[in-house]
C-alpha cells in the first residue's frame, strides 16, 4: 500500500504570550529561537519522522515553506544533508504558497505511485512574519512537520482521495523585497478566498469520490484563525464539537504551509484504525484530501510528534525578546573580527559541520570528532569508519558562560559534551538558562543557525538540554 509510513513534527521550545504583543489577546504562539529558522525546524521534524526508520531507504526529500532563508538555493539539500540522507535522491523545494505543504504531499504520493521512487520524505516548515502591529503578527506561529511516504505494509494512513483547485487571486502574498506578509482585506479573503475556494475543493472531493462529511472522523483546515475556521466548518457541515480538529491556534498559532499537515500529524497521534480525516489547505487554491487510517496505526513508532513538543515549552512574556530574535531590532553588537567565508572549506567540511560525522578508529576503537586523518590515541593513519553524532545523546562534561561575547544572545554557553558510546564534542549550547547548567546533565544535538555572513547562512549543530527535561 502507498501512503504515510511515519510522521514527525517540531515545535520550538519558546512560546510568546499574545498578551505581550497586544493587551487582551488570548493564548500564546510558538516562536523560533534566535538560532532557528525554517530550515533548522525542518531538520528537527525530519529527524523526528525518520526516528526508527532506515535513512538509507529514503529516495527523496521535498521541502515546503514560504519562508526559505534563500531566494535562490535549494533548502531541500541542506535539510537532506543534515538528515544524513543519501546523495542519489530527488530533492525539490516547494515554495511561494501556503498550499505548498499539501502540494508537496500530493507530488510525493504521485512520485511513489509512478514507481519513480520508493520512499520520499515531505517536510513542511514555516516561520512567517507579519508586520509589527498587524493581525498576521498575532496569528502566525512557527513549526514544522514531516511525513515519510512510501509503498509498504507498514503504512499507517493512505490518501485515498484527492482534489485540487487552482485559484488565481491576490489573497496573501509577498513580492521580491517584502519582509512582511501582504494580504487583501480580511473579510474579502475570508469570503472569496477561504470560503469559496476551500468550499469548491471539498465539494469537488465529495462529489468525485462519493463521500459526505459524515464519512469523516475529523476535518482539519490549514486556516486556524478561529473565526475564519468556524465559518468554514459551518459552511461545510463540519460538527465543530466532534469533527473539527483542534487547530492549536492558542498554543502554536498559524504555521503557514506546515499548518494543515501539523494538524494531520496531531490527529494521527490519537487515531484508530478506520478513522478518516479530511485534510484541507489553502493558498492560491485549495487541496482537499481524504486520509484513511490503517490497522498499522497501533504499531506506529512513538516519537515526539506534536504532543511531545506541545507539552514541553517555555513561555516568554517579553515582546522585545521576540522582535530581537526575528532581527527586527537593529541591536548594536560588539565588533567582531569576521573571517572571510571560504566556500571550498565550507564544502570540504560539510560532513563534520552538517552531517555531524566524526570517526571511529578501526585500529583502536577511539571515537573522535571532528574526523581526523591520524588517530589521536594510536596514530593509525586513514583507518577510520564514519560515525554520525546528530542522533546521539550525551552528558555535559563541563561548560563556560561567556558574558562579553559578540553572540546575539548573552551569555553564550560553550559546552564540552561526552557522547553515549564514546566521543566528545565542543559546541555552543542553546535553550538553557544559566541556573539550569549542571555537570552531567543530559543533552541532545540540534541543528541550528550559527551565523549569517556574506549572504551565507552558516548552519551546524548545538547541544540543547534533552527536550523531555522541560516536561
Amino acid at each position, binding site marked *: 500500500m502507498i501512503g504515510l509510513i511515519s510522521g514527525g513534527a517540531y515545535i520550538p521550545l519558546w512560546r510568546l504570550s499574545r498578551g505581550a504583543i497586544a493587551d487582551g489577546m488570548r493564548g500564546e504562539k510558538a516562536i523560533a529561537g534566535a538560532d532557528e529558522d525554517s530550515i533548522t525546524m525542518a531538520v528537527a521534524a525530519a529527524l523526528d519522522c525518520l526516528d526508527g526508520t532506515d535513512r538509507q531507504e529514503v529516495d527523496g526529500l521535498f521541502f515546503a515553506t514560504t519562508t526559505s532563508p534563500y531566494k535562490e538555493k535549494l533548502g531541500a539539500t541542506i535539510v537532506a544533508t543534515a538528515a544524513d540522507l543519501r546523495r542519489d535522491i530527488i530533492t525539490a523545494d516547494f515554495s511561494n504558497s501556503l498550499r505548498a505543504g499539501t502540494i508537496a504531499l500530493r507530488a510525493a504520493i504521485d512520485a511513489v505511485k509512478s514507481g519513480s521512487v520508493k520512499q520520499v520524505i515531505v517536510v513542511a516548515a514555516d516561520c512567517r512574519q507579519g508586520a509589527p502591529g498587524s493581525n498576521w503578527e498575532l496569528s502566525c506561529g512557527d513549526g514544522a512537520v514531516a511525513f515519510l511516504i512510501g509503498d509498504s505494509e507498514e503504512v499507517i494512513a493512505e490518501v485515498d482521495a484527492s482534489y485540487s483547485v487552482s485559484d488565481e487571486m491576490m489573497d496573501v502574498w509577498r513580492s521580491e523585497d517584502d519582509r512582511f506578509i501582504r494580504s487583501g482585506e480580511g473579510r474579502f479573503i475570508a469570503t472569496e478566498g477561504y470560503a469559496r475556494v476551500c468550499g469548491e475543493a471539498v465539494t469537488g472531493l465529495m462529489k468525485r469520490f462519493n463521500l459526505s462529511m459524515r464519512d469523516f472522523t475529523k476535518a482539519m483546515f490549514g486556516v486556524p484563525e478561529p473565526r475564519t475556521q468556524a465559518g468554514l466548518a459551518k459552511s461545510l457541515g463540519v460538527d465543530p464539537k466532534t469533527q473539527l480538529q483542534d487547530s492549536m491556534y492558542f498554543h502554536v498559532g498559524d504555521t503557514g504551509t506546515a499548518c494543515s499537515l501539523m494538524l494531520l500529524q496531531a490527529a494521527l497521534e490519537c487515531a484508530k484504525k478506520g478513522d478518516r480525516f479530511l485534510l484541507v489547505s489553502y493558498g492560491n487554491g485549495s487541496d482537499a484530501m481524504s486520509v484513511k487510517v490503517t490497522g498499522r496505526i497501533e504499531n506506529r513508532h512513538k516519537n515526539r510528534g506534536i504532543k511531545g513538543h506541545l507539552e514541553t515549552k517555555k513561555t516568554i512574556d517579553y515582546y522585545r525578546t521576540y522582535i530581537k530574535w526575528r532581527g527586527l531590532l537593529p541591536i548594536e553588537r560588539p565588533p567582531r573580527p569576521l*573571517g572571510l567565508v571560504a566556500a571550498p*572549506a565550507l564544502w*570540504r567540511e560539510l560532513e563534520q559541520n552538517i552531517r555531524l560525522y566524526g570517526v571511529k578508529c578501526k585500529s583502536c576503537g577511539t571515537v573522535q570528532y571532528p574526523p581526523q586523518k591520524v588517530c589521536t590515541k594510536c596514530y593509525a593513519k586513514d583507518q577510520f569508519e564514519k560515525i554520525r553524532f546528530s542522533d546521539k545523546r550525551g552528558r555535559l*562534561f563541563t561548560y563556560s558562560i*561567556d558574558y562579553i561575547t559578540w553572540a546575539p544572545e548573552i551569555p553564550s554557553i560553550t559546552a564540552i559534551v561526552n557522547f553515549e558510546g564514546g566521543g*566528545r564534542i565542543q559546541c555552543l549550547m542553546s535553550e538553557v538558562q544559566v541556573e539550569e547548567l549542571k555537570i552531567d546533565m543530559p543533552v541532545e544535538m540540534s541543528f541550528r543557525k550559527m551565523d549569517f555572513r556574506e549572504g551565507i547562512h552558516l548552519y551546524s549543530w548545538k547541544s540543547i538540554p534533552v527536550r523531555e527535561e522541560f516536561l
Partner: protein
Amino acid sequence: MESIKDRVAIIGMGCTKFGELWDKGPYDLIVDACYEAFEDAGIKPKDIQAAWFASLVSGSTGSRLSNALKLEYIPITRVENFCSGGLHALANACYAVASGVCDIALACGVEKLKDRTTGFAMMNPEPMDSSKVIPETPPANMFAHIAIRYFNDRGWDIEEGKRILAQISVKSHHNGTFSPKAHLQREITVEDVLKAPMIIYPLGLYDCCGLSDGSAAAIVVRADMAKDFRDDYVLVKSFGFSSGAGQAILQDDYDFLHIQENIEAANRAYGQAGIKNPRKEINIAQVHDCFSIHELMLYEELGFSAKGKAREDVEAGTFALGGELPVNTDGGLKCFGHPLSASGLRMTYETYKQLQGKAGPRQVKNAKTGLVHNAGGMVGSLNASVSIFGREAG
C-alpha cells in the same frame, strides 16, 4: 641529544612600557625595546647578525623588524606561536648562536593589540576548523571549562573557589605597584575581585589579564663570548617546549583538571637544566597568568606546590614577593596586559633584571635561578614554553 645549558648568554635586554599606547605604532615600540637592549649590551644595531621577530598582529614577515631598526640585509625569521612567540623567538636566537652560524643574535616580540577593538576573540579556532562555521572559542572559555571541573573536583563552591583565585590577583597587583613599566599599578582587595563583573563564569574581571601594546627584546651571544660585553650576563639554562595535538577535545577521557603541555614543557626544561626540586631550586618565576585559574594550576604543574597543596601555599603567601618562591614579581600579565608575542620576552626581562640585582623595590633577595613560562592557544592545543635562566654556570 645535546643540551643548551650554559652555552648561551643574554647580554642585553629592553622592554617598553606596556599599556594602551595609542600614539605608538609597531615601529615605535620595536625601536624603543631594541635600542634599550643595544644600549644595555653596549652594541650597535649593525652588530646584530641574525634576528627572530615574534608578532601575531603586527607583522607577518621579518621585514617589519628590519624596517624599524634599519638592519641591513641580515637574515630575519618571523615566529608565531600565540603567547609562546616571544620565548620561541628567544630560543631560536639562542640555538643559532650556540650552533655557531652567527655570533650575536636579536630576539624581539611586539604587538599592537589595542589597534583592534576585539580581544582574544580574534583568534581563529585552530587547528581544527578551516570553514569557520563553529564560532571562535576564546581561550577564556577553555580556562572557564577547567575552572568549573577544578572547583567541582576539589569540592569548592563558587565563592570558595573564587576567593582562592582572588588572592593570586591581589598578590600580582601588589607587585605591579613596584613596576613602573606595568600598565596597571594599583592595589586591589579580595572583595574587589569577588564583586567585579563576570567575564566568563566563573572568571571575573580581575581573574583575566587585559590586552595591551608592548614590545621587548633580548640580545644573545655564546657563553664563552659573554664576558666581552658585561660581567653580569645571564645564562640560559634550558628551554622546554611542548605542543598539544588537540587531545582535550579528541579524547573523551581528558579531565579538564590539568594541562599536559605545561607538564611536558616543564619536565623538558627541568631535565635539561638539571633541576630535581623546583620548589627549592627555582628562586623566582614568571608564569602565564592569563587567567587566575591558570596560575593556580601552574603552581602544581611546575612543581612549586606538592600535588593538592596549591591552595595551602596561596593562603600561606608562599608565592608573594616576600615569600619562599615569588611568582610574577613584576605584576605578571595581570598588570602588564598581554601583547602576546612580547610577553615571553617581558618575563625574561624581569628575570634578567632580578638576576642582575637591578629590580629595585621588587628585588627578590638571592635570586640565582629564574623560570619563565608561557602557554599559547587553547587547552588541548596549547604551545607551552618553559625557560630557565641563571647567573652561574653549573
